[in-house]
Structure formats: C-alpha cells, structure tokens
C-alpha cells in the first residue's frame, strides 16, 4: 500500500501497472503421475516515472516484498540502480523478509520507515536500525509517503548512498 502512495506522490504520470503472472509449482503428494500441479498468481506491479534534466527518466517500480515473488524480482531488478525499502515500524518481522529478499538480489538499498506527525514512537531510530540488523552504511530515513518532498528525500538518501558506495571496480 505504501509503495503506490510513494510512487504516486512523485510520479509525473498517473501510476500505471502491469499484470504479471507467476507460476508456482506445488508438489502434490498423492499425484501418482508425478505431474506437478501449477497454480498461477497474477500480481500487479505499479510504476511511475519522473523526467529529470539532461534526458534522464527515472522509473519507480513498486515490487511486492514476499519471497514467492522472487522470480519476478530478479526480472524487474535487472539493471536497477537500487531499492528503497519501506518499513513499517510496527511490523518489523515482515520487514525482515523483505530485506532478506533485497539482499539476496544484491541490490543496494536504503530504508525508509513510515512516520506520521501524530504517531506514537515505538522505537528510536537506533532501536529500529538494530532491530533490522542494518549495515552501518545503509541509509535509514523517515518518510511520509503521502508527501512529495518526503518521498523525494527518501529517494535522495538512496541515490546518495549509491554515489558514496559504488563497488570498487566502478570507482
């Protein structure tokens, strides 16, 4: 839900989506023929874009964070600059899985955790960073995905991280 909000807050086009099919093979214990029963999930991938000076066009793809969408991830993540991981401070467990998935794909990332002006603080930023077991270099920012400036700041945190931590061979 927050992914689309963030994308919508900065995209110059109305957020579009594509419907992707995911075929999951599930083993049938009683299937004598040994044929796997395949179930197909349809998942909508929202995206938006921002045209920047100099002919750059930045696309933002909202990608679901569940492990079963891993095949889709690899496809969408191909050639991506990095990932912005939205974390709900009240649902840290669910965020673990997403971070694991992002790290598996090798994408550089930054973490943005939701904050609302009147929300009670459940964790200090330091507690959150520790709870998520983030590398010291991983940016962690607060973000109100409804606010364009806040969303841009989160994206900027990621991009600055990409500039500062390029792989050695690309320096």
């Amino acid at each position, binding site marked *: *839900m*927050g*992914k689309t*909000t*963030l*994308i919508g807050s900065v995209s*110059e*086009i*109305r957020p*579009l989506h594509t419907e992707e099919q995911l075929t999951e093979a599930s083993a049938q214990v009683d299937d004598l023929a040994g044929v796997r029963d395949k179930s197909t999930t349809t998942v909508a991938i929202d995206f938006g874009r921002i*045209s920047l000076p*100099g*002919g*750059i*066009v*930045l*696309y*933002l*793809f*909202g*990608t*679901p*964070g*569940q492990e079963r969408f891993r095949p889709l991830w690899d496809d*969408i*993540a191909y*050639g*991506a*600059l*990095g*990932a*912005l*991981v*939205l*974390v*709900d401070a*009240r*649902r840290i467990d*669910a*965020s673990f*899985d*997403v971070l694991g*998935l*992002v790290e598996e794909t090798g*994408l550089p990332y930054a973490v943005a955790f*939701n904050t*609302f002006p*009147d*929300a009670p603080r459940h964790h200090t930023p330091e507690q959150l960073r520790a709870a998520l077991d983030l590398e010291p270099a991983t940016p962690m920012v607060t973000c109100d*995905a409804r606010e364009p400036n806040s969303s841009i700041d989160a*994206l900027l945190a*990621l991009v600055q991280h990409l500039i500062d931590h390029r792989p050695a061979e690309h320096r």
Partner: protein
Amino acid sequence: MASATSSTVDTAAVGDGIHLPDTARDLVKILVTGPFGWARPP
C-alpha cells in the same frame, strides 16, 4: 496503417502525457518495496 487495426488503443493515453518526450535518453529505475500493509495514520 493496416485496416486490420482494431481500435483497441486506450485513447486516454493521447494527451495523457504517458508517451515519452523526445528528449528521453537515459532511462533508469529504482524499486520501491516493502511488506504488505503499510499502516495508515490513525
């Protein structure tokens, strides 16, 4: 255009600004992800 074209074009796209400007050169992408259920403010 071929007369076989059925007009299945989403006409909302025309003038919707979806088509890319001619100046578009370097297309890059960032993934935005997270678990389901980003909580709404109370």
